[in-house]
């Protein structure tokens, strides 16, 4: 029986048998449900908490499943509830449980970069998710990744939007002082793309891209790793056969128009903006490289968690809540409108709608539909972090040995996020490592060194 099952249902099993979380008959079904329904919130918060408390009480009273079933079958669920309520104050316990600790600090500042990856962080302000969790959050638009890093390290921001590999890089002291940082939630999965200049519309085979110039937003970014991976899989060495430049997103569109670069792997709304302005076309979505890849993260320093654990918990709840809301297709139009104004992303609503709803112009005269073009799933898989570490090593950003697992578990707070998700009635995955495939090549998080060794193209270290 999982924490969210109705404890008064005699047909439920109390202890896990089939799968790791106990909700499903088999592990396969669990995996299926985990991917399909990860962000399905329960009907109402109060009901959810009630269920959690009742589960705990029933579990304590009937440690043996057979006894519980017999009892419930003989008296019926409602009688059982009434009976238990008599000697255990379920109502009060539920209220106590629902009231998380009061935030130490209510007025928080969260930095973001104006791209659709920041959707949950941004929308949580206008749509009231921060307020719902008792926080008064000011979301502050920030001029670039290096600045957001410095401002978060300087504590001008309590937490912020970062590229998924950035907290790992900061923790390891790559390109900054080593400061322990954490990722309690992934902001978005998928949602990037390779956009090429119109003049390359017949050069769709990457093998023809030798000598071309590409832009990426930041060195420690999924964009960098995915583009390098994609090029290398097609036999191009990203360090010698093409030129990769770190360029801020708006300048990517301008440079593409000016014929100064041939393409870019960029965060969305920028890819779609290039198409909207008629200067480029979508070569592929990043989803086609790795379906379900993480892109941006929600990051906070370890110090913030230690000093204000309740604020941090409330913030994580608000972000997870917003992410769950954003994961639903039917809310995407409303979200696009909420985050388009000058105060937030400052982009045409049409562009954001195309990104978020997944019905978009491809720049070559066609309209494409892919509802998962960008998706939202907060769970910080530690295997994601391990993959990023392998790529950091592959491209020479990390020299020497690295304890993949230790770093991943220190930075990606899967356990804490799982707990928050459970409290909110969401179903977190049972483990924090999963294997996945990038361009058809399987990645086993247990064997990062073998994975790394299997690449032909890599920087000699």
């Amino acid at each position, binding site marked *: 029986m999982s924490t969210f099952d109705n404890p008064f249902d005699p047909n439920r099993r109390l202890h896990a048998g089939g799968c790791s979380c106990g909700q499903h008959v088999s592990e396969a079904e669990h995996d299926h449900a985990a991917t399909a329904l990860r962000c399905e919130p329960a009907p109402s918060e109060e009901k959810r908490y009630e269920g959690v408390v009742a589960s705990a009480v029933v579990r304590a009273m009937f440690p043996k499943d057979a006894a519980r079933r017999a009892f419930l079958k003989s008296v019926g669920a409602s009688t059982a509830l009434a009976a238990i309520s008599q000697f255990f104050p379920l109502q009060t316990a539920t209220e106590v449980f629902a009231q998380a600790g009061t935030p130490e600090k209510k007025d928080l500042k969260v930095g973001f970069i104006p791209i659709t990856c920041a959707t949950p962080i941004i929308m949580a302000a206008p749509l009231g998710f921060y307020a719902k969790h008792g926080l008064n959050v000011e*979301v502050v638009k920030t*001029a670039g990744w290096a600045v957001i890093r410095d401002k978060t390290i300087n504590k001008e921001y309590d937490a912020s939007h970062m590229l998924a590999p950035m907290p790992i890089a900061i923790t390891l002291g790559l390109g900054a002082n080593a400061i322990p940082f954490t990722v309690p939630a992934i902001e978005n999965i998928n949602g990037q793309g390779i956009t090429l200049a119109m003049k390359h519309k017949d050069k769709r085979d990457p093998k023809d891209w030798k000598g071309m110039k590409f832009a990426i937003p930041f060195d420690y970014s999924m964009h960098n790793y995915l583009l390098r991976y994609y090029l290398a899989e097609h036999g191009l060495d990203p360090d010698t056969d093409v030129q990769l430049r770190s360029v801020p997103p*708006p300048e990517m569109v301008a440079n593409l128009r000016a014929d100064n670069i041939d393409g870019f792997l960029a965060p969305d709304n920028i890819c779609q903006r290039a198409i909207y*302005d008629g200067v480029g076309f979508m070569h592929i979505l990043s989803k086609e490289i790795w379906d379900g890849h993480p892109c941006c993260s929600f990051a906070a320093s370890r110090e913030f968690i230690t000093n204000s654990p309740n604020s941090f918990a409330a913030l994580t709840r608000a972000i997870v809540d917003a992410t769950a809301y954003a994961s639903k297709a039917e809310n995407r139009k409303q979200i696009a409108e909420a985050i388009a*104004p*000058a105060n937030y992303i400052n982009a045409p609503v*049409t562009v954001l709608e195309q990104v978020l709803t997944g019905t978009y112009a491809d720049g070559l005269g066609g309209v494409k539909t892919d509802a998962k073009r960008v998706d939202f799933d907060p769970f910080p898989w530690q295997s994601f972090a391990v993959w990023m570490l392998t790529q950091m090593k592959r491209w020479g950003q990390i020299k020497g040995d690295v304890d993949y697992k230790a770093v991943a578990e220190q930075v990606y707070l899967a356990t804490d996020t799982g707990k928050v998700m459970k409290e909110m009635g969401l179903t977190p995955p049972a483990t924090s490592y999963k294997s996945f495939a990038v361009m058809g090549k399987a990645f086993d998080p247990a064997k990062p060194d073998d994975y790394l060794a299997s690449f032909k193209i890599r920087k000699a270290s």
Partner: protein
Amino acid sequence: MTFSLRFRAAVVSIVLFAAFLGIWHLATRSTAATTTMTPEYAKLMGLTATQGKSAMPGPLDVGAKLWEHLKQPFYDKGPNDKGLGIQLGYSIARVGLGYLLAVLVAIPLGFLIGMSPLISKALDPFIQVLKPISPLAWMPLALYTIKDSSISAIFVIFICSVWPMLLNTAFGVAAVRTEWINVARTLEVGTVRRAFTVILPAAAPTILTGMRISIGIAWLVIVAAEMLVGGTGIGYFVWNEWNNLSITNVIIAILLIGVVGMLLDQILARFTRMVTFPE
């Protein structure tokens, strides 16, 4: 009938401006769309792609947008969207503060350098090395060490506006005519009194020229600094609109930056005229 020079110059200015606007308008006219698109595809595309609208806005677009901004210069819709008046206010305040700090440091130090050949020679290598550093090169260092973005911006203003003032003050003080100083010596005027009653008035025009150069540089730098750190100010406004690829708003910001820079320069020019003396 002849008109005054002033009037004729004004006429030429207006003609030039009108010609500029006309050429601008013609150069940015939209051309008809070259490709045919299905209606549902066209709905997803911008005007540049569908109607062949130039990526560069014309003078009419800029005028309309400018009017929109001027109608409502002080609105405040949260931390990331404020009226142009408020943004300019932030920038001017930062420039003012950084500049004031620079005045407080540069003028006394410049006096010291001008009056003492020893100090002048000793400090010279440092000044020569520090002076040519681009103000923006200081920015990452400032952010890293000061750990506060708005103080960093003020620091950058300070560090870039201090040198012209320092050098001009030192030069002005050193170039005070020796006869005047000798006269003061003969009359047994003390050092402090000599500095205030003889040297300061004599060097004032040069000092103010340095201050005028400095305010110009400070205003040049603030826009770049704010683009880098973001948050508030006219530089942030430019960055934010650049992010949206709204060239119209960027042009408006450029126009306003020019106007404010001119006003700041004019204020100091007036002060310079006040202290100038005929020899």
